[in-house]
């Protein structure tokens, strides 16, 4: 039989992604080696930087939080067969929702209520920014990939204008808003755990991590348990069948894009209310694009997305450590690794599949012949 059998489920879900990941790291290792540094050493510096030093885990998990939001955003769209490259812009513009809620409600509402209003406001604003590409795809047939790219640039332009103009903190040179009031600040994780008598090292990690975990759970319920999720997945796999089944495809596309944008929008909760305590220029820092890598690696499943986010969190945090320890390699290494991971677990996801399948078939055949 010349035909290659499909991979068993465990190999497809675990082994293949792992092989792809190793391939990505291997190529990056070669680059490090070519530069004249020791790849193993670089890796151990990164691992130490991400997990070992006091507080480093908090930094890592803080990055993880961001990637979970953008990863969930990309994954939501993927389930409907849509490619949302606009997470970056949606996460950026969503801070306006927070700014709005603070301006209107912070003067008289207590902290808990302000925070509980800010979180949906960020999500809604992200959803609104994703609504237009979704609407244009559903009703006018313009491809969501291209429009979301364009909307990223529009978001950048809009935010630069707002931050340097109407929202600029008085007397400030660099484009940023004034500090948000105390009742809109999300408590840090060290503070929150302190309430329960636990003592952890100081880091930017804050309660938005919990928001991310809740978001992951909501995502799981949404996609696999609700009728909306069923409709989203049907549209993603077969639009004709969806139409036949009485699913309003346009409507689902728009809703999915808005939910996707809402997940991305939650990133602002962490960045603005948890870490910076103001809206600063470019706080999204490419996390929206990293979300694509996260969703691809995590196979659009919340558990996979969590681990992929953790991996990227460690890479970003550990990568920063490279700056201190090495002369010639910097945190830009992380970009390379990220690119390689997108390449291997995205575009080349099934490159190793046939050979892996042959190996597995070969092994199981050998086992069978031993019996």
């Amino acid at each position: 039989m010349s035909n290659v059998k499909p991979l068993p489920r465990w190999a497809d879900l675990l082994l293949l992604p792992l092989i792809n990941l190793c391939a990505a790291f291997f190529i990056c290792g070669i680059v490090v080696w070519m530069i004249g540094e020791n790849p193993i050493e670089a890796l151990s510096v990164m691992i130490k930087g991400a997990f070992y030093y006091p507080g480093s885990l908090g930094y890592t998990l803080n990055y993880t939080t961001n990637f979970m939001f953008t990863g969930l955003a990309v994954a939501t769209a993927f389930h409907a067969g849509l490619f949302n490259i606009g997470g970056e812009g949606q996460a950026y513009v969503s801070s306006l929702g927070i700014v709005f809620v603070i301006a209107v409600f912070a003067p008289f509402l207590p902290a808990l209520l302000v925070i509980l209003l800010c979180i949906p406001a960020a999500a809604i604003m992200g959803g609104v920014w994703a609504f237009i590409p979704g609407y244009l795809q559903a009703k006018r047939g313009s491809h969501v990939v291209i429009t979301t790219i364009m909307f990223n640039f529009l978001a950048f332009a809009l935010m630069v204008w707002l931050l340097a103009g109407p929202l600029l903190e008085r007397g400030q040179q660099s484009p940023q808003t004034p500090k948000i009031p105390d009742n809109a600040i999300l408590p840090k994780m060290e503070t929150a755990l302190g309430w329960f008598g636990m003592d952890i090292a100081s880091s930017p990690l804050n309660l938005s991590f919990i928001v991310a975990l809740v978001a992951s759970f909501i995502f799981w319920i949404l996609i696999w348990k609700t009728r909306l999720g069923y409709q989203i997945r049907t549209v993603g796999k077969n639009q004709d069948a969806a139409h036949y089944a009485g699913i309003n495809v346009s409507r689902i596309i728009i809703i999915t894009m808005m939910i996707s944008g809402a997940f991305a929008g939650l990133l602002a909760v962490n960045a603005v209310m948890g870490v910076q305590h103001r809206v600063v220029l470019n706080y999204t820092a490419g996390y929206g694009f990293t979300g694509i890598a996260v969703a691809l690696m995590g196979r659009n499943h919340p558990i996979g997305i969590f681990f992929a986010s953790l991996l990227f969190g460690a890479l970003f945090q550990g990568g920063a450590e490279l700056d201190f320890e090495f002369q010639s390699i910097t945190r830009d290494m992380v970009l390379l690794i990220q690119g390689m991971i997108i390449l291997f677990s995205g575009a080349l996801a099934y490159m190793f599949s046939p050979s892996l399948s042959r190996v597995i078939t070969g092994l199981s055949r050998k086992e069978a012949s031993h019996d």
Partner: protein
Amino acid sequence: MIDFFYQILWTLDATLRVATPLILCAMAGIFSERSGIVDISLEGKLLSGAFVAAAIAAVTGSAWLGLFGAIGASVLMSLLHGFATITHRGDQVVSGLAINILASGLTVILGIALFKRGGQTPTLASDERFRPQELWFVDLMDNIPILGPIYRELISGHSLLVYVALLCVPLASFILYRSRFGLRLRAVGEVPIAVDSAGVSVTWLRYRALIVGGVFCGIAGAYLSISHGANFVREMSAGKGYIALAAVIFGNWRPVRAFMACLMFGFLDAITSRLQGVDLPLIGEIPAQLMLALPYILTILLLSGFIGRPSPPAAIGKPYIK
């Protein structure tokens, strides 16, 4: 009045300068997309071309070697895109995205490793770059009113690569519409199985389209770092690849129309820097961000069918499976 005339000339001159990398990248995008392959990796190819051109020119002192290096690097990126999307039928958007991120990481890493200047390359001397060149008879033409200044300020005085970019448009048009390669390329972007059943390899055809695109992007990259600029700076492509992609769409995947779109986008850019801080009568000061966002807004409007109807190649984005 004379002053105003020169203002216009200088703005148009700047337009041409800004539009040059856009034009080259747009032609690259047309070749790739007309063959059926989505190419958001224009940005990454442009960036890697810019880096390699500056790096080689800095090391060897030769602008020409820099140019060829840039082309080589950009073609290599194209081949990677092809390997992922043609050979392994990977998602074209994902692959393009990976290449863009790879390029922005790799250029800085290699830049630091080679030159230890935080990712920049050393500033090139004048003879290590493609410098503006005066065309023939400039002095002679000076005597002619209106045409003289147009010739001196607008037509003459650009680097070789600007003229190359301008030549690329009719060249691309000629290849696409008058050559066998072009006919097959357009066909493979519409109905690849028709090309296959005519006995022509879809794979090789698409690879060639990507390689041609790589050459164009390489030239564009070299223009950025060793002609327009005098060194490589991190992220110096600054979204130009995406604007070029917008121009491709705006030009309905046709060279001459895409060229016009590039000029329009270039003009918007040029006029933005001219209008910076200028209070226009009635309107007031136009935010620069609005002007910079205009290409994207226009493209979105076009894509949504509010101005004209785009007709992308029928097979774009779909890997060919027999």
